[in-house]
């Protein structure tokens, strides 16, 4: 066996792969081969490092050098300089935006400093397609202990004591869920992993599955043992081909190693996992809809109770947990409930993975202890707002969440505080908006998504959300009235109060929270017909400033609809009824005489 003194980790997540990650791996291998370094340097394709803003990422171990935005053509230099000569390739190092200094160790980057990786512990660290690396990292140790040294109720007790809450959005205590499933007796029970990640911009589940699939298989098997289920199903959206492939490889390896299948680790316990593919309907993240979808029925929710733990897949007791929830399980069992409780807050122990997106410098995937503030996440980890703009709001919890503003920046992030602030944890999407964003349009954007993703079963969600979207569009078009604002409020509250499932019960949140926090912006749209962010085209006016206009006629000549009139050397005028707001005139004017009102 070759004895490697250096490992080169290349991010093999979907994002970095799309940015030529594969070509980097290939090219590194080629260089290593050409330099006869096969016995000393190993190239490993790992899961996501999280710092997607700066991808593709290449990390060199053991000197812990973090190269960012690497291109395939950089690999020659990495091998020649870093690997052979031991000199870091300076130009590929991350530059701290504040200190303008190069940072080679990711631990010293603002993005990573406050992170704590539990669910993502192996992402960006091990080769997800190699079970040996997982076992080398204490993989399946937790399962082994459960099967050999613990009774099912002991396992449930640890999970209950840990205070772990469902990471899929609801925040239901995981241990309790397992206990309920364990107490419902049936000839067959199921464990389902909900990998139907559907929030726009969220990819935490995908990253875990791509970076550490065995941790999910291990956790599902543990859950099976705890609840006396022998069949596991991963409901995963078919748009996640890489995650599917990695899971398939992992299942195959686990079966070959006897870690899935009959008589696992000689304990007499049988468990196996299969994949079920979803077509990417957002509502199928709702557990009853997910189960119907797996049964081949229309993916739509049904009234709870009965809960899946009582009557789930094919009417059998079924425990459904989200990917990130499962990813926490093995660690909790190894390190103990007390350790887990020491992280995060009292009511929300542990960490949470967030997908940072929007107008933020460091877009990417982060895992932070619960209780961290939005300010820390956005301004330290996220590196602040892009292009030095002003922070306006952050949408947490995906399309079902709400917009939080400056006044919430120091709110600790945990399940209950977010709900109290009018938003929710959701699966962990975090989209930052700045002064250039119009909050009415932001609410409209999210409604567009829920309208699209409603299953159509219940009337409030099917029709109500559509009406919300229409009224928001009306306001953005400058036709809104004060009555519409009241209407929005009432419709939103009724939809929340009456919708069948979590999708409809939360879909008006973006409207309610923007009404709450940005009522003045709504009023401007309605009363003054003004959009301060300049997003709503119908509310914009191109106006010629007479003082600056020299009458060159350039604007009139470029206007595609003939909306500009004026004599040569005379002041020009834009007919607002004709103007289509294309902006051609403003580009053409050399005298700064045209501005947007």
């Amino acid at each position, binding site marked *: 066996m070759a004895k490697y003194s250096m490992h080169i980790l290349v991010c093999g997540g979907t994002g970095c792969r799309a940015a030529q990650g594969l070509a980097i791996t290939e090219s590194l291998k080629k260089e290593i081969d050409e330099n006869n370094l096969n016995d000393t340097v190993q190239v490993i394709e790992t899961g996501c490092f999280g710092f997607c803003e700066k991808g593709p990422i290449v990390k060199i171990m053991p000197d812990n050098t973090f190269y960012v935005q690497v291109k395939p053509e950089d690999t020659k230099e990495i091998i020649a300089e870093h690997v052979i000569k031991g000199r870091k390739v300076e130009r590929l190092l991350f530059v701290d935006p504040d200190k303008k200094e190069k940072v080679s160790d990711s631990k010293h980057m603002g993005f990573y400093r406050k992170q704590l990786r539990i669910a993502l512990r192996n992402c960006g660290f091990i080769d997800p397609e190699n079970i040996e690396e997982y076992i080398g990292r204490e993989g399946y140790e937790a399962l082994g202990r459960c099967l050999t040294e613990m009774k099912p109720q002991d396992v449930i007790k640890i999970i209950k004591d840990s205070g772990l809450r469902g990471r899929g959005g609801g925040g239901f205590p995981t241990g309790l869920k397992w206990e309920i499933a364990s107490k419902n007796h049936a000839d067959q029970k199921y464990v389902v992993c909900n990998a139907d990640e559907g929030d726009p911009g969220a990819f935490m589940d995908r990253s875990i599955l791509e970076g550490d699939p065995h941790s999910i298989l291990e956790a599902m098997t543990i859950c099976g043992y705890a609840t006396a289920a022998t069949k596991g199903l991963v409901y995963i959206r078919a748009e996640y081909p890489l995650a599917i492939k990695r899971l398939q490889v992992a299942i195959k390896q686990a079966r070959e190693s006897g870690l899935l299948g009959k008589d696992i680790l000689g304990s007499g316990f049988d468990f196996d996992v299969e994949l079920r593919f979803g077509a990417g309907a957002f509502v199928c993240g709702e557990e009853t809809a997910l189960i119907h979808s797996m049964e081949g029925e229309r993916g*739509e929710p049904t009234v709870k*109770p009965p809960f899946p733990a009582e009557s789930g897949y094919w009417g059998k007791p079924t425990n459904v947990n989200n990917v990130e929830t499962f990813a926490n399980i093995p660690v909790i069992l190894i390190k103990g409930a007390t350790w887990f409780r020491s992280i995060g807050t009292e009511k929300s122990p542990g960490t949470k993975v967030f997908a940072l997106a929007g107008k933020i410098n460091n877009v990417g995937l982060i895992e932070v202890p619960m209780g961290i503030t939005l300010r820390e996440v956005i301004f330290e980890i996220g590196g602040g707002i892009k292009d030095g703009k002003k922070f306006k709001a952050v949408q947490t919890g995906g399309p079902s969440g709400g917009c939080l503003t400056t006044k919430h920046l120091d709110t600790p992030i945990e399940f209950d505080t977010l709900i109290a602030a009018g938003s929710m944890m959701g699966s962990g999407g975090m989209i930052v908006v700045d002064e250039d964003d119009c909050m009415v349009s932001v609410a409209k954007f999210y409604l567009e998504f829920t*309208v699209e993703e409603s299953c*159509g*079963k219940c*009337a409030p969600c099917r029709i109500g959300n559509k*009406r919300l979207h229409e009224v928001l569009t*009306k306001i953005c078009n400058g036709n809104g009235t004060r009555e519409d604002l009241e*209407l929005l409020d009432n419709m939103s509250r009724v939809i929340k109060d009456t919708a*069948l499932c979590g999708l409809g019960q939360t879909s008006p949140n973006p409207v309610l929270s923007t009404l709450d926090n940005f009522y003045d912006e709504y009023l401007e749209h309605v009363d003054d017909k003004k959009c301060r962010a300049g997003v709503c085209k119908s509310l914009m006016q191109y106006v010629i400033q007479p003082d600056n206009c020299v009458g060159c006629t350039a604007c009139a000549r470029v206007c595609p609809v003939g909306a500009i009139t004026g004599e040569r050397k005379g002041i020009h005028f834009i007919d607002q009824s004709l103007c289509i707001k294309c902006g051609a005139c403003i580009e053409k004017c050399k005298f700064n005489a045209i501005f947007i009102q």
Partner: protein
Amino acid sequence: MDFVKLIIDNKQVEVPAGTTIYKAAHQLGIEIPVLCYMNLEHMNIENKPAGCRICVVEVEGRRNLAPSCSTDVVEGMVVRTNTMRVLNARRTVLEFILSDHPKDCLVCPKSGNCELQDLAVKMGVRKIHNEEISQMSSYRVDYSPSIIRDLDKCVMCRRCETMCNDVQTVGALHAVNRGFMSVVAPAFEMDLVKSTCTYCGQCVAVCPTGALAEVDNTPQLIRALSDTKKTVIVQTAPAVRAALGEEFGYPAGTSVTGKMVAALRRLGFDYVFDTDFAADLTIMEEGTELLGRLEKHLKGEPVKLPILTSCCPSWVNFFEQQYPDMLDIPSTARSPQQMFGAIAKTYFADKINVKREDLIVVSIMPCLAKKYECQREEFKTDGNPDVDYSISTRELAHLIKEANMDLRNMPDEDFDNPLGESTGAGVIFGTTGGVIEAAVRTAYEVFTKKKLEKVDFQQLRGMEGIRSASVDIDGFELKIGIAHGLGNARKLLEDIRAGKSEYHAIEIMACPGGCVGGGGQPLHHGHSEILQKRAAALYREDAEKPIRKSHDNPMIIELYEKFLGHPMSEKAHHLLHTHYVDKATVIKTIE
């Protein structure tokens, strides 16, 4: 049984565990409005997708409102059904539904009989906000020979889906598309005619709005009646007389045979006949066929048993589509409607000396599949159908009202002869179990050559979905199966396919309850006890009839003597029997 105490609107009530809030409130006399919810208690059919959210109530300690139709009571629960929060929610949700519903109530087939309209009245909705910018989920209208689907009016109550899938197992209707554009339709939004629809009309029978309605044939009928060159005759199916009265304020289960005849005569029909006559004829043919097969069976010759009844056109469609491998099992006898048409356009036309094309045969049926059946190519001669138009009970009621007549003021009149004479056996064709009881009455006497003293076979009656009984025919134990509702029929058919069926004869009716519950009957709006009352009315009429066995019908005897010869004769075969088509293959070919 465990009981649960709870408080609804400050009143205490004790109900069995597992009861829903809706039912518990009902027990207190509190009627919570519903739209999608439907409980056909006597048929064991319940539809509660909890989709419309009209029945929401406030439950203390619960974050959001609860759908009372599908939320089970819990000990100590405190429920309020009429707080302002609830009323505001209900009204707002109803406004949502109305905002996506056409406002053409004036010309809607369900106008005045529409549950959504009733709700709008009850809740006093006066305005649809922002109507000018509210998009509608619009679909084309789909026409079939029996049913019209106008999906703009679909409120996604899913009742039709429950009937089509869970009850009938036909599987023609499912929710399709997502979100705002969700509707219930055949797969890929195909036309109904290309689907597996059997036209049973149970979807129409439960649709709360005008999304599903029968094809209206009254305009053609009115034109035919106003054409002086035509002789227009009418036949009325047994189940019609037991339900028509409901449209005129009679309590369910009132038989209005005589008044119906009078009304039809006043509408201008030249002859008012009875499908019951043809029902007796059916017994002669089908009964003879059964005996023929039985005799072979007793001799040990290979023969297809059980024999299946074939008088229900929806059931015929069902087996033609779903069991094309078993087309030789059902009786080849045509349905009474078609037997009547065939005899009317030959025997009777000759008798009154009217040319076939000048004779219009109209049927009044509790059924929508009959509209399709009378258009089948098998039942036409040179393109001229044996039955020209089939009108549902509902359409007849409309027509009577349109003609300024009130059934209540009609005298009782008798059917015309010769095709109006019938027996009690013909009358009970209209309910589940009736056909086979009529057949047994005749088969017994023909087989044993003895007189049957006790003609009431209670063991064949009832509302159980699948029933079986043995009838002792002079030492021979005739094993009978009965199924109503196509889902129940499927169970018996699967047994036959698997070679496990022990029956000699099986009666199948597509609609729950038989024809009394047909898709063309006055809408029961969820009151399933109505069906039992209609059935009871038919059994009463049977009991009151002087002649109760089909082969004793003097007009039937005369028909055979003067025209057909004997049952299963070549002429009878030509006029009164049919053949079946493998529709599964046909449908595939269309695709």
